[in-house]
């Protein structure tokens, strides 16, 4: 099968080169049409994100198709093709399938498991479809790549664990509290990271949100931004006593929350856990509060430790995902080789069906008084004949595609049954190569 993928990504090309090649949607449409107009590439999809520019194509001569695609791309972007050459990789056939699956499953991403890439590929595919540069081969490839990506998401935990400090804090909160819905949050200070963590908690249903700041106006602004309530900084302990999660990120040089104050608070809480997310440096919460029962205090280093552990989990899950992708590639190659012979099977069927219909019509013309039963019997007889005759050649074609001899068999069938190789002319490169 003449399938190829060629391009560059965050590993092979520096950002300076990648940004030069990034193509926006309008230009991409133009580019897709230009590339297809050359006739060298039968089908083409171009993926352009900040971390990769890749051309997926089907062409008789992949080398030439690749060269054409990138020549056009370079011309569009005003880049010297020679500068591009060392950064380019090309994968053919099975390797191209493997690559497509890995990219869609986010195994080839800079941050393995990040979820955006799948959407980006879907967009690229939809764009190519709207430009009518997608044929059956790429259609099969991409729809399967989406299915594999989904399978990787559900069967491995590749995207499960937070890899940013603010998300790690949310994840920890969910390991303490079963449900974040209705958990009260207090944000102390006005650091960006604190606000981000608070936002994530709000997204998970945390409510209500309180904001405390030494400057009342800033507390007020932040509270409005988070749809929360500002509380006076002097009444910090009172506020801490009523909430479940405290995020601190002040610029104070001394802890604003001491072990003694927390110990006093905990007496009245009847075991309601209290979770401190201390993002400030120097720290806002005395580290020893963590020794109190039902109090969990994570400072920035502890959160980073969780992120590191999560990253190790991701690597582990990525290994499982790789194995899954390999299995899917093997399965898919079988299907794709079927796709190689399917146009021949279809035209063979059409040919015989055409003969059948014609002959039945002629016979019925000679039998004007034929009863509906006779007509039905003739239809059934002819259909059965065609199916019986087709059975062996179709089985053989399917088998041959799996053993890699599909091409010579499709040629033979075309010769024997006088089939036109119309499919090749209309969609260029797709179908049997006679």
């Amino acid at each position, binding site marked *: 099968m003449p399938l190829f993928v060629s391009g560059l990504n965050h590993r092979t090309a520096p950002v300076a080169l990648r940004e030069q090649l990034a193509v926006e949607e309008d230009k991409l449409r133009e580019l897709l049409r230009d590339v297809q107009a050359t006739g060298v590439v039968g089908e083409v999809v171009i993926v352009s994100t900040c971390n990769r520019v890749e051309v997926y194509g089907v062409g008789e001569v992949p080398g030439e198709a690749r060269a054409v695609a990138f020549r056009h791309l370079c011309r569009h972007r005003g880049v010297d093709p020679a500068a591009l050459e060392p950064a380019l990789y090309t994968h053919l056939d099975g390797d191209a399938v493997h690559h497509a699956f890995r990219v869609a499953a986010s195994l080839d991403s800079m941050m393995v498991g990040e979820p955006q890439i799948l959407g980006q590929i879907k967009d690229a595919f939809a764009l190519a479809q709207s430009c009518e540069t997608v044929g059956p081969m790429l259609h099969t490839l991409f729809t399967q790549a989406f299915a594999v990506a989904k399978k990787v998401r559900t*069967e491995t*935990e590749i995207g499960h*664990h937070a890899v940013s400090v603010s998300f790690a804090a949310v994840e*920890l909160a*969910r*390991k*303490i*509290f*079963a*449900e974040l819905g209705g958990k009260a949050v207090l944000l102390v200070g006005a650091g960006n990271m604190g606000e981000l963590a608070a936002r994530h908690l709000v997204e998970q249903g945390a409510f209500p949100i309180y904001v405390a700041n030494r400057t009342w106006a800033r507390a007020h602004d932040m509270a409005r931004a988070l749809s929360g309530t500002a509380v006076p900084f002097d009444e910090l302990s009172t506020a801490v006593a009523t909430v479940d999660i405290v995020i601190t990120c002040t610029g104070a040089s001394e802890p604003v929350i001491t072990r003694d104050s927390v110990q006093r608070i905990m007496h009245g809480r*009847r*075991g309601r*856990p209290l979770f401190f997310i201390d993002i400030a440096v120097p720290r806002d919460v005395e580290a020893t509060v*963590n020794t109190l*029962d*039902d109090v*969990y205090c*994570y400072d920035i280093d*502890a959160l980073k*430790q*969780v992120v590191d*552990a*999560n990253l190790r*989990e991701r690597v582990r899950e990525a290994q*499982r995902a790789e194995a899954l992708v390999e299995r899917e590639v093997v399965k898919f190659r079988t299907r794709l080789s079927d796709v190689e012979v399917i146009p021949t099977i279809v035209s063979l069927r059409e040919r015989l069906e055409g003969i059948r219909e014609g002959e039945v019509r002629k016979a019925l013309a000679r039998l004007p008084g034929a009863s509906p039963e006779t007509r039905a019997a003739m239809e059934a007889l002819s259909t059965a004949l065609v199916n019986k005759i087709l059975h062996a050649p179709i089985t053989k074609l399917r088998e041959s595609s799996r053993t890699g001899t599909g091409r010579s068999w499709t040629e033979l069938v075309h010769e024997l049954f006088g089939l036109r190789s119309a499919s090749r002319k209309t969609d260029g490169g797709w179908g049997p190569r006679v």
Partner: protein
Amino acid sequence: MHLSVFNLAVVGYVCATGLALAYLIQREEIVYRFASLATLASWALHTVGLVALAIQTGRPPLGSLPESVSTAVWVVVLLDLWIERQYGVKVLGAFVLPVVLVLSLKTIARPTAFAQIGPTLGGAWIWVHIALATVGIAAFVLNFAGALMYILQERQLKGKRPGTFYYRLPALETLDRLTYRTLALGFPFLTVGLVLGAVWAGTAWGSVFAFDPLAMFSFVAWGIYAATLAGRAVAGWHGRRAAYFAVMGFAALVVTLGAGLFLPGRHGS
């Protein structure tokens, strides 16, 4: 007939335990499915065995201590399967099934001579006593599993070094709730069961304790559970302290059953 079915069920529980532990470490979804399937199949066999035993003896499968423990195991596995589905605590099996296995090895593989409750011991109350105690014990197996998971998860969270348990075990709140609910479920059963046993012992043996090791230890276990429940309900105990008490209570319960199974006494061995 029921003996071979029981043995098959035990073999099934061994497989299920292995798979459940493998799932805890490996975290392959497929392993969980197999573990679930093995548990369900073994439980079905166990059911068949208990029914066959009941038909053969013409009475509930609670006639001797090993039989009752076997029935308790049956209830435990049923609850385990239900909680796994209901609460999505997929790792529960890894904590419950080893206990099931320990309880099964002595009781299912060799259910000793049945019909130990002789004519003198007759009466409906004795069956109610056994049935209630059985359900109570089953609830406390799950209580123990919940407490153990709580202790492990709490340690991970306090230690700030996430490991297998951090990723696998549910939230502390969920585990604390599970521990509380199983305690609240098991305690009334155990209490009424024990009271009936004591009253009955008083009339049949002439003394409430009658030097029966199981009866004596069971009151120790009951005392621990009573203290935990009182602490939870009145003094706001929860979390780690409640979990430690649950583990202690279960240890006492295991000693109780061990005493009943291995020491000579009126509960028979």
